[in-house]
């Protein structure tokens, strides 16, 4: 408890007693202080003055494309699509790429290669819901052998990204083969409006993963998909979208065709060594898989999917997105125009 101070004591210790009035010096000091604060408050108000009020939506810079990564076309008559039959993904990858002119036809010294895998679910590789780690390892090694300076691996999966990449074995394959896994952290997403697009307008896409990238190779499994008919090369690009992208399932074919325009890959590899025949795209049981022993290599994702759908026992006409993508100039359903070749691993090896 403090006792009340006797009058006058305050002035002696420096704090003025108001009853005795301010002396001139103190008055001027206060006047100056008050003026400075008043001017500062006014200045701050003027600097932040907003006569219009807030806009309805926050605008900003919007991208138009994730890029065109197509390599120079090979001489006329050379194959641009190869089908390889076999069961050993690594050997099949080497054979398929060789048939299209070798990895050097796609990746040059110094290239930064982004591998777009399908890592959608935190599901082990054996269940076939994700890109197989053997295929990823083969692709990374081939890119590095062709002189790529950096190899990146990315996807924006459905389950927690850390879990998806770990459980599927994709992180492990990337680590041991010398690639960097880019998990889709929020900072990597930027809004994009596809020119002429109806669906992908001002929508967050995984643009940050493409910074500095010069080549893109997409590695996708072949899976059943109730809504789209099948999930293959083009559906794999759904993983480039962010946000609550599921709203696009209302027009799944339309959005897949737009995804084909969003980004033009250098090469797509469609892995049908085993195909998820039913219960896709999640699977969950070995009973959902069938050994279809096929891998398709193509510079054109539409052609790859046109061919790949047969592995599911379905016809290209069952996938309306193919015709829409073709009409949008993403690729062609006329597989023969790509001078396709078919190879069988056993025969070639032996």
């Amino acid at each position, binding site marked *: 408890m403090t006792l009340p101070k006797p009058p006058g004591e305050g002035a002696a210790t420096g704090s003025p007693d108001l009853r005795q009035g301010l002396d001139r010096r103190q008055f001027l000091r206060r006047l100056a202080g008050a003026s400075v604060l008043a001017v500062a408050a006014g200045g701050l108000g003027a600097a932040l003055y907003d006569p219009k009020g807030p806009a309805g939506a926050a605008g900003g810079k919007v991208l138009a494309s994730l890029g065109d990564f197509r390599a120079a076309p090979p001489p006329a008559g050379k194959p641009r699509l190869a089908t390889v039959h076999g069961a050993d993904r690594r050997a099949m990858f080497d054979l398929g790429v060789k048939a299209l002119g070798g990895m050097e036809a796609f990746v040059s010294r110094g290239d930064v290669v982004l591998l777009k895998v399908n890592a959608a*679910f*935190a*599901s*082990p590789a054996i269940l076939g819901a994700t890109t197989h780690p053997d295929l990823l390892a083969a692709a990374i090694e081939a890119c590095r052998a062709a002189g790529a300076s950096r190899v990146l691996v990315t996807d924006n999966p*459905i*389950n*927690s*990204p*850390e*879990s998806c990449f*770990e*459980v599927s074995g994709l992180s492990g394959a990337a680590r041991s083969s010398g690639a960097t896994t880019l*998990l*889709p*952290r*929020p*900072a990597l997403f930027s809004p994009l409006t596809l020119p002429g697009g*109806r669906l992908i307008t001002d929508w967050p896409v995984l643009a940050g993963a493409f910074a500095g990238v010069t080549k893109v190779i997409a590695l996708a499994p072949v899976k059943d*998909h*109730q*809504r789209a008919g099948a999930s293959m090369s083009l559906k794999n690009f759904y993983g480039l979208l962010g946000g*609550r992208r*599921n*709203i696009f*399932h*209302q*027009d*799944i*074919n*339309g959005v897949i065709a737009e995804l084909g325009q969003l980004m033009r890959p250098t090469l797509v590899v469609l892995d049908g060594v085993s195909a998820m025949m*039913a*219960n896709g*795209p*999640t*699977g*969950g*049981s070995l*009973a*959902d898989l069938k050994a279809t022993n096929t891998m398709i290599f193509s510079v054109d994702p539409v052609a790859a999917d046109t061919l790949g759908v047969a592995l599911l026992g379905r016809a290209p*006409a069952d996938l*309306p*997105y193919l*015709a*829409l993508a073709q*009409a949008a100039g993403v690729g062609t359903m006329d597989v023969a125009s790509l001078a396709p070749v078919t190879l069988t691993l056993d025969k070639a090896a032996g």
Partner: protein
Amino acid sequence: MRIVVARRVSQGFFLLLFLWFCLVATVGAGWMQLRGWPINWLLSLDPLTALGTMLATHTLYAPLLWGLGALALTLFVGRFFCGFVCPLGTLNQMTGWLARLGRAPKDRAEDNRPGRGQMVKYALLAFFLGCAALGGLQTGLLDPLPLVFRSVNLALLPLADPGVGVIHDASRHYEGVWWIGLVFLAILALNAVRPRFFCRMICPLGALFGLAARIAPWRIGKATDKSCGDCRLCESHCEGGCRPSGTLVVSECLLCCNCLDRCPSGRIGFSGRASAAGETAVPDFSRRGAVALLAAGAAGALAAPLWRVEDAAGLGRSPSLIRPPGSLDEERFLARCIRCGQCMRACPSNIIQPSVTTAGLIGLWTPALNYRLGRSGCQPNCIACGQVCPTAAIRPLSLSEKLGQGDYTAAGPIRLGTAFVDRTRCLPWAMGRPCIVCQEVCPVSPKAIAVREVFEPVRGGRLLLAGARGSTLALARPLAVSGNPASGDYYVRLLGAPEANPVRLVGGGATELTLAAALPAAAPGREVELLVHLMQPQVDPARCVGCGMCEHECPVSGLRAIRVTSENESRSGPGRMLA
């Protein structure tokens, strides 16, 4: 080495150890991830958790044996845990020290005078033990170890994530964590009122240690009862408020050892005899102290059964209360859960949330799944929450038990609840728009969501034909429908021919439609109807495990059109829904 230096080193070590355990509790095999770090060890050292669960369950879960070790050591040397180990105690001591920088020793000694408020913690302890004895474990609300883990893991660490990505790439979210954070800040702020305010007045674990310290043979005390003037330097930094200069309040001594260090004449020591200046302890069992304690214990014992009046574990339970996979039935769960938040911290999907209202007041901050938050539903191949639960309120499941494989095939998978389609909100059911995302993401094989395929007439889709040539139809009036007729989901059929197979539209403009095949009997003057092909989701409750993948991904982003509620959950017999 001076004893206070040893004490500070020990406090620093355990504080860093605590922070390390918080940091590495992310599921993963990396060096800075969960791998094999014993992140529960500090929680296991807590004898209040051991005692509370023993009273509530009549068993002692193996890891909690550590806590009895800590209690046993206290019986010999006093409250070493408070002085040398407790991370919250260390944080309190640090903030109290910061708040008193530059204060005179006399003022400090005044702050450290023993007060009646120090009785409160014993009353709280009695209340909590009374609750526990009747099956409602509430110790975790104020027990410093669960409290500090919960506060740092759920409230502080997520602040370091956004943009910085210290622990997670994306930000973590926890329901109602504002209150958890505020309670923590308040506890730290109270140190400005009295040093170690929480430790002295509130901490029920400190009270338990205080009771044990009463019989400790080794203790701090004065070597002689000769009057030693009135310097009271021993009390200037006394953390416990235990009056080392006079009659020592034995139960309140935290073993901070500052008195011993500061006494200019070396009168205070740590030895195997009572303080020569006399000893006392709170509460005083011979007087009102005993009555107050009995009253608090009785109040606790009365409070616990009150929730049974609510029937909060039975029919009175909120249907939205979904516990993590492996959780015991509600009654046994609440007898074990200490609300430490380890499951919430570890969950890679970030869906385990500290319940604010879902589990009722009795279940404040206990874990409940919220499928709207986080990254996805409960991942089938994840069992992290049960593995990190320190009290087995969530049992440590194996993957095969969770999935119902191997030895558990007969028992089937662990079910968290059942998904229900809200047909008034579902796009294909209510609004004629294709969707079926829920079926796509259902991770069960075969899928627990089946589809019902229908062709539904589109509003404004009754079209008069001006001509028909092969697979091309010319329209008499421009097409005006919402949606994209060329998307592959739209079909046409002759009006009045419901048996005819609809033919898919593959393109067209405002006045012309291109079909996948010719439409039989199409002719000028006839009418066709535009149909949308819909797949409407239907849940098979015998297959659904309640993982919530569907609810999380449902594009109806507000109140989801498919929602999981607790019906049919494995953990409670009465929750069974299917015959």
